[in-house]
C-alpha cells in the first residue's frame, strides 16, 4: 500500500481552498452529534477523522430521500466526502449492483458516484452496536474507497486505494510520500485494537451466513415476539446503508418523483385488487430480515447488512436485531 501524508495545519488550508472548487462533506462532530456535514471555513476544526461513525450513512448522498427523476440531471461542483467508515463504503457495493446494473443504469445515481471522491476513514474505536467484523467487513478500507485517511501525530496520512485517489493527491503538492515504519506500525496496531474490540463486543453473534440460516428457519412466534414493539415507522430501513426501496410518485407532465420507501410501511406490497402479502406486521418485520440475510445474498454478490448497527440505534421500539440472532444462534 502506498501512503502519503500532509501536516494537519496544511491539510486544513487545503480544505479551505477545496471548498471553493468542490462540495466537500466530512464527518463533523459538534453539540448535535456526529454526522456528515458540508465543510465550511468555520467547521474545519470540527472534522473527526477516525471516530466511528456518522449518524447517517453514505446512502443519503447517492439516493436522496426524494428527487424528481424526470428532470435534468444534477450539475455543479464535484463532491468530496471525507471520513466515511468502511461499513458505509461496503454498503455502496450493493447500491452499485442495483443502480448500476447492466440492464437499467440509473443516470442520477451514476452521475453522483462518478462525480464523487470518497475518502474513507479507519475506525479507531467502536460504538455500542458496531458489528461490521461479524459480517466480514474490516473497520478500515483497503479496496473500495478512493483514499483512506488517518489522523495521527499531527499528520493527515492517506492510504492510496484508487487511481482517482492517487490523482487527487497529485493536485496537492504538500502531500508527500510517507513510509515511516513506526507510524505505519502504529496504524496497524490501532486497526488490530479496533478489531479486538469488535470481536470482544460481538461474542456469540453469528456471522452473516449463519444469520441467514437462523432467519430462514425462525418461526412465526419469533417474528411476532420481536415485532411486538415495532410501530412500522421505517426508521430501520431509512437509516440503513443498504435499504434502497423506493416509490415512484406521478406529477403532472408525466414527471416522476422517486421517494425512498420501506417494506415496513403498511401497503408496501399491496396490489390494486387488494391482495397484500405483507399485511400483517410480523410478516413485514420478517420480510426485512429475509431480504437482508437470505434473499439479497442469493441474488447479489454484496452484503445487504454491513453491521453498522444504525437500525438498532434508530429503533424507537428499542428492537435489537442482534438479540434475536443471539437468542436463536
Amino acid at each position, binding site marked *: 500500500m502506498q501512503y502519503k501524508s500532509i501536516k494537519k495545519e496544511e491539510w486544513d488550508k487545503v480544505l479551505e481552498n477545496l471548498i471553493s472548487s468542490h462540495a466537500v462533506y466530512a464527518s463533523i462532530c459538534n453539540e448535535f452529534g456526529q454526522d456528515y456535514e458540508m465543510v465550511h471555513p468555520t467547521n474545519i476544526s470540527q472534522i473527526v477523522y477516525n471516530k466511528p461513525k456518522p449518524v447517517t450513512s453514505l446512502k443519503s448522498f447517492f439516493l436522496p430521500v426524494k428527487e424528481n*427523476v*424526470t428532470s435534468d440531471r444534477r450539475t455543479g461542483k464535484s463532491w468530496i466526502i471525507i471520513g466515511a467508515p468502511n461499513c458505509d463504503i461496503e454498503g455502496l457495493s450493493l447500491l452499485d449492483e*442495483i*443502480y448500476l*446494473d*447492466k*440492464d*437499467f*443504469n*440509473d*443516470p442520477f445515481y451514476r452521475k453522483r458516484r462518478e462525480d464523487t471522491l470518497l475518502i474513507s476513514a479507519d475506525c479507531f474505536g467502536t460504538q455500542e452496536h458496531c458489528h461490521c467484523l461479524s459480517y466480514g467487513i474490516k473497520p478500515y478500507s483497503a479496496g473500495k474507497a478512493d483514499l483512506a485517511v488517518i489522523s495521527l501525530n499531527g499528520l493527515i496520512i492517506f492510504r492510496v486505494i484508487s487511481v482517482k485517489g492517487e490523482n487527487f493527491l497529485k493536485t496537492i503538492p504538500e502531500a508527500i510520500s510517507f513510509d515511516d515504519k513506526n507510524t505505519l506500525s502504529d496504524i496497524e496496531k490501532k486497526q488490530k485494537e479496533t478489531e479486538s474490540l469488535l470481536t470482544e463486543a460481538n461474542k456469540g453473534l453469528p456471522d452473516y451466513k449463519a444469520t441467514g440460516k437462523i432467519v430462514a428457519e425462525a418461526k412465526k412466534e419469533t417474528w411476532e415476539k420481536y415485532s411486538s414493539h415495532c410501530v412500522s415507522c421505517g426508521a430501520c430501513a431509512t437509516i440503513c446503508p443498504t435499504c*434502497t*426501496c*423506493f*416509490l*415512484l410518485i*406521478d*406529477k*403532472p*407532465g*408525466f414527471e*416522476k418523483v*422517486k421517494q425512498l*420507501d420501506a*417494506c415496513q410501511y403498511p401497503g*408496501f*406490497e*399491496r*396490489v*390494486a*385488487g387488494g*391482495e*397484500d*402479502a405483507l399485511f400483517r406486521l410480523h410478516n413485514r418485520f420478517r420480510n426485512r430480515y*429475509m*431480504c437482508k440475510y*437470505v*434473499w*439479497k445474498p*442469493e*441474488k447479489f454478490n454484496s452484503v445487504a447488512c454491513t453491521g453498522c448497527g444504525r437500525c438498532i440505534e434508530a429503533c424507537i421500539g428499542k428492537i435489537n436485531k442482534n438479540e434475536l440472532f443471539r437468542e436463536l444462534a
Partner: protein
Amino acid sequence: MRNDKNIYKPLRAKLTDVIEESPLIKTFVLVPEEEFAFRTGQFIELSVDGIGEAPFTPSSSPQVTDKLEVTVMKTGYMTEYMHNLKPGAYMGIRGPYGRGYPVEKFYDKEVLILGGGCGFAPIRSLLYNLIAVSDKLRKVTLCYGSKTPEDCIYKPYISVLRKTPKFEVLRSVDKASGNWNERVGVVTILLDDVKVDIKNSIAVVCGPPIMMKFGTRKLLEMGYPEHDVYLSMEKNMSCGLGKCGHCMMGKYFVCKDGPVFTYDEIKDQPNIWD
C-alpha cells in the same frame, strides 16, 4: 455498459380508441410517439398523467409495433381514472419490461392455456403470437373462465379463434344467465374436458391469484411437470427496473426476473399466490 437513457422517463402515447369489453373491463388502444416493440408476456408501466402508474401486459400482438392495446379492469384509484379517459388523451409508457413467454420452447408441442377474468389480456397477446407460429405448434387449447357470461371478454376474438385451425376454446362461467350454453363452474372444471398429450405439452396459467393457485394444482395433478407450467405472476411492480423492491417475491424481482416463471422456479418462494 454506459447508457444515457433516462430509465424513469415515460414515452408519450396517444389514446386512439377505448373498447368496452365488459362492465368492468376496457381495452385501450395506444399509439406511442415512437415505435414500441415488446415480447409477448412482457409488461409495460402505463401512466395517467399526474395520477399514477401501474403495470399491464399488453393484450395486442407483439408483431405490431406502431400501436398497442392494454386491457384494464377497473379495480383501483388509477384504473378508475383510466376508465374515464377518452380517445385523444395522452398516456405515458415505460418498458417493455421483464421476461415474457418463451414461445420458441412451445414449438412442436401442444399448448394448454388456462385463463381467468382479466388474465385473458396477456393470453390474447400470446394467442396472437401463437397463431403467427401455428405451423410450428401441434395444437392450442384455451380454457377460459369468468364470473358471468357478461364478464366474458374478447367475444369477437373468441369467434375468430374457434375458426382457426389447431385452436380450440373451452369456456366456463361461475354463474350462468341468459342463453349461456357452455360449461358452468370454476375454470378448472374445463381441464376435465381437455384431451391433451401431456408428455408433449406445456401449460400456461394467467388470472387472479386464487385461480392461478388451484389451476396450477390441478395441472400438476394431471401430470404436468413443474417446469412445464408457465405462470404470469402479479405483484406490485412499481419501477419495472428491478430496483424499487415492491415486487420482490423471495429472491426474485418479479418485474425483472419474471413476470413469467415456471412453477418450479418459484414454488419455494414466499407468498406466490398472495
